[in-house]
């Protein structure tokens, strides 16, 4: 190998390495906060305290009513998962009807496999994790839309234009968090809007207002005095599936490693 080939190959290898490295760059909420000058004065972010959640499901019920999702339809914009971890490290997850009616039994709903009941002494830890759209800074669902029906607003909320959506469901497949569904009445992609009609009027989302325990909070990342922003900046927060590079903007307090 002569010097020319060696240099050529080295550059190729370095270039090849550089791409995945930049793709693996993870989001820091600080970068979103700092970008204040060039755009919107608002960047909505959500904070979930999994320690506080009791699995009452009032958030799911309120969301369905507020956002006109047919109550009996098997779709929901937000849901609550229960994690039960045994001493042997085995974890069971369930979310019967999205937790719409709350959790009222120790029986764990395992879908087609029926129910499962763990002995009280075997349970090492058990807790609830509310889930909703992460309103990612790099939303995969928006990238894949072939008709420009789903988009991100300047304040960071990912919305679906029901008039333009053709119902191809690419976005439903693209979302790593499975937060999108198909609306049985409108026949379009359906997702959490952070209650855009409420937050733009100075209200909180329906799920935040329905939660008696302060588990859910919404705030503006561009406002350094916002209590939610303060917690996100200084608290020990985690996000879901950070490795996908979607830069999710729903932050979790007390996230456990079993939570996916």
């Amino acid at each position, binding site marked *: 190998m002569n010097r020319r080939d060696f240099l050529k190959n080295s550059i190729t290898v370095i270039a090849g390495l550089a791409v995945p490295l930049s793709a693996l760059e993870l989001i820091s909420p600080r970068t979103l906060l700092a970008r204040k000058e060039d*755009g*919107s004065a608002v960047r909505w972010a959500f904070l979930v305290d999994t*320690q*506080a*959640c*009791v*699995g*009452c*499901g*009032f958030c799911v*019920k*309120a969301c369905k*009513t*507020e*956002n*006109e999702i047919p109550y009996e339809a098997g779709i929901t914009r937000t849901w609550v998962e*229960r994690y*039960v971890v045994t001493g042997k490290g085995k974890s069971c997850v369930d979310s019967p009807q999205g937790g719409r*009616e*709350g*959790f*009222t*039994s*120790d029986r764990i709903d395992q879908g087609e496999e029926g129910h499962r009941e*763990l002995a*009280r002494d075997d*349970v*090492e*830890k*058990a*807790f*609830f994790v509310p889930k909703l759209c992460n309103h990612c800074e*790099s*939303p995969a669902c*928006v*990238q894949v*839309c072939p008709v420009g*029906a*789903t*988009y*991100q*607003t*300047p304040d960071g909320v990912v*919305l679906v*234009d*029901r*008039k*333009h959506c053709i119902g191809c469901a690419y976005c439903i497949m693209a979302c790593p968090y499975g937060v999108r569904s198909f609306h049985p009445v409108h026949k379009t992609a359906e997702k959490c*809007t952070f209650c*855009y*009609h*409420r937050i*733009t*009027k100075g*209200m909180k989302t*329906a799920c935040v*207002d*329905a939660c*008696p*325990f302060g588990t859910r909070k919404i705030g503006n990342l561009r406002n350094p005095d916002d209590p939610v922003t303060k917690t996100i900046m200084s608290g020990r927060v985690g996000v879901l599936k950070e490795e996908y590079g979607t830069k999710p903007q729903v932050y979790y307090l007390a996230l456990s490693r079993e939570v996916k």
Partner: protein
Amino acid sequence: MGSHVWRPLYIAAALIAVVLVARTFLVPEDFGIHERGYMYGWHRKGNEAEWKAVTVKYRTAAYCRECHADKAESISRTPHGIISCENCHGPALNHPDDPPTLTIDRSRALCLRCHAALTTPSSGRAKIAGINPETHNPEAECTLCHDPHNPISSQGEALAKRHEEGGMQGASERGSEAYPSVR
């Protein structure tokens, strides 16, 4: 070049022209790249306003307090004060104009959302007084004995005592940890 080359080219050019003309009519004027850029910003700007126009159904406890200040004040002093009125009374919408009355959910299922005893040691649920719905007066409505607006009233204390004396399962046993006054 002969006409056999130009003819299909004319047809192709005409097709492109038709598509471009049709596009100007079919694509809404406000459709384009907006603030979030080429990658995430393609949309019809008017759709943002459509989402903002969705009717607000849950008006929050602050709205209820405008007329029911006395109720709101008294309940705020009880452990149930953290629960939004509309969680049990239903979304207010434009009450009292429309609907004039709200349908109150008094079902057992509503109370059990929080008060069914579960094995969840590492969640807030463990701190709430819980009962076993299958053994704790399964036929009765909770409101028969418990006042949801004042869960630890004097009536509640009497109940807790009766639970202990009668050996009834549930509330007294676990409730004592959460609300010491119950005992």
